[in-house]
């Protein structure tokens, strides 16, 4: 419990580490999301063009 | 012998659309290059690209054998550009507008009054450009070309807004320019009757 309370600064310290982890996760997630969206868009277009030809 | 102006393997995209691919041409003194095609076929884009205002996807336009992209001052010192938007200030008078031209490119030293008389706009000298009709503004743009002393005329749709008389005037002036060893690239969707050495490019 002592380790968690960080000499009374626990809330500040843990918030910062959570934020750090959060930013890393969000960046990774946004990058994957963007990739997936672009991929889908191209896939749909290629399929649609394939039907026309 | 290298041509004065030449192009090899030009490819141009506008947005997602490919306007043309692998286009080539050559132009020498006394010659006219005529770009034909319906509206929206990419004539204006090609003209703007030759003028160096937009970039080709592939290929280069060469002026005296050197790509214009890297030799802009050389090329631009020999060109005058006429397009749909005439490039004059509506608030300035005809004379004030033409006087500014001398800061942009070499002038032939031709007498202003003679040139304006020939174009039949000498009465409008002191009027601000906004009070001129579209056709009269086109004639002022022609005055810009006559007052300059450059060999290459780039004209995008020079006949727009001109009456029959005006169109004949453009053709006469161009023929005259070519006969003096000048060059011209013209984009037009009307029939053009210009004597001399004409090459045509049809855009689809």
């Amino acid at each position, binding site marked *: 419990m002592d*380790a968690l309370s960080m000499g009374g*600064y*626990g809330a*500040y*310290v843990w918030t*910062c*580490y959570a934020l750090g982890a959060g930013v890393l996760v969000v960046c990774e997630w946004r990058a994957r999301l963007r990739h997936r969206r672009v991929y889908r868009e*191209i896939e749909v277009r290629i399929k649609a063009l394939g039907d026309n030809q | 012998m290298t041509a004065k102006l030449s192009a090899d393997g030009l490819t141009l995209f506008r947005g997602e659309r490919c306007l043309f691919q692998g286009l080539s041409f050559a132009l020498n003194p006394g010659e006219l290059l005529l770009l034909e095609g319906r509206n929206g076929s990419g004539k204006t884009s090609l003209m703007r690209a030759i003028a160096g205002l937009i970039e080709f996807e592939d290929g280069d336009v060469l002026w005296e054998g050197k790509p214009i992209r890297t030799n802009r001052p050389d090329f631009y010192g020999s060109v005058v550009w006429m397009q749909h938007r005439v490039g004059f200030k509506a608030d300035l008078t005809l004379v004030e507008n033409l006087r500014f031209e001398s800061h942009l490119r070499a002038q032939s030293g031709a007498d202003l009054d003679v040139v304006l008389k020939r174009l039949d706009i000498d009465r409008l000298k002191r009027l601000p450009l906004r009070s001129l009709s579209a056709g009269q503004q086109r004639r002022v743009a022609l005055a810009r070309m006559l007052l300059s002393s450059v060999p290459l005329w780039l004209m995008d749709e020079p006949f727009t807004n001109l009456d029959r008389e005006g169109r004949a005037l453009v053709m006469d002036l161009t023929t005259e320019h070519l006969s003096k060893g000048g060059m011209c690239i013209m984009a037009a969707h009307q029939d053009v009757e210009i004597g001399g050495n004409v090459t045509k490019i049809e855009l689809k």
Partner: protein
Amino acid sequence: MWKFIHQLASPPHFYRIAPAFIRWLAVPGLLLIAYGTYAGLFVAPMDYQQGDAFRIIYIHVPSAYLSMMAYMIMAVSAGIGLIWRIKLSHAVAAAAAPLGAWFTFLALATGSIWGKPMWGTWWEWGDPRLTSELIMLFLYFGYMALRGAIDDTAKADKASAVLALVGAVNVPIIHFSVEWWSSLHQGPTIIKEGGPAMDAAMLYPLLAMILGFTLVFGALLLRRVRAEVLYRERRTRWVKEMILAGGN
């Protein structure tokens, strides 16, 4: 050497080999962060002035460093793209901006949280570093807004590259002027985050965190660049063939 760079800069090749690079950056990076977090939180001794609150610097310093680093990467690759017309480097610049903005945000948030117990306020204008970071965030916003406002990718690349270069000239000046400005301010005394005489047990976790964050940043950057490359090459034959073959 040149051939290697040229090959790497070819979009299909980059797209194929990027996942391997991402793995090789992310795994050691995450391991370093794990070690740094553990050692920083539980092993490093308490700072006698700041108490346990100083442990925030293990997040704050790497993110502040990366916010500058990302701007530099962005400006340099934008410059390369503008001068040598390498499409991949424009993609790198486009990918670096949002990441840089996120790390700048992290540096600001942690700096502000650190400031609360230290200065008693969430925001202290007297601290030049926080103020610089704030302006940095505005610079990133401007860059991304300009990119977002131009539809044509090639045009957006070139216009934003000019902005990135102008910004890069200004960043040191902004830094300097904020420094000068706060030196006039007679506010609360600012405790320096870690002096030169830092205990080894405090220093090693910090170095591990900086290196780990940098590696993970590299991995994130590559992942974003990969998505950018795919978008930019969407009309090409290799993308079509890859997607028809069900590749990833």
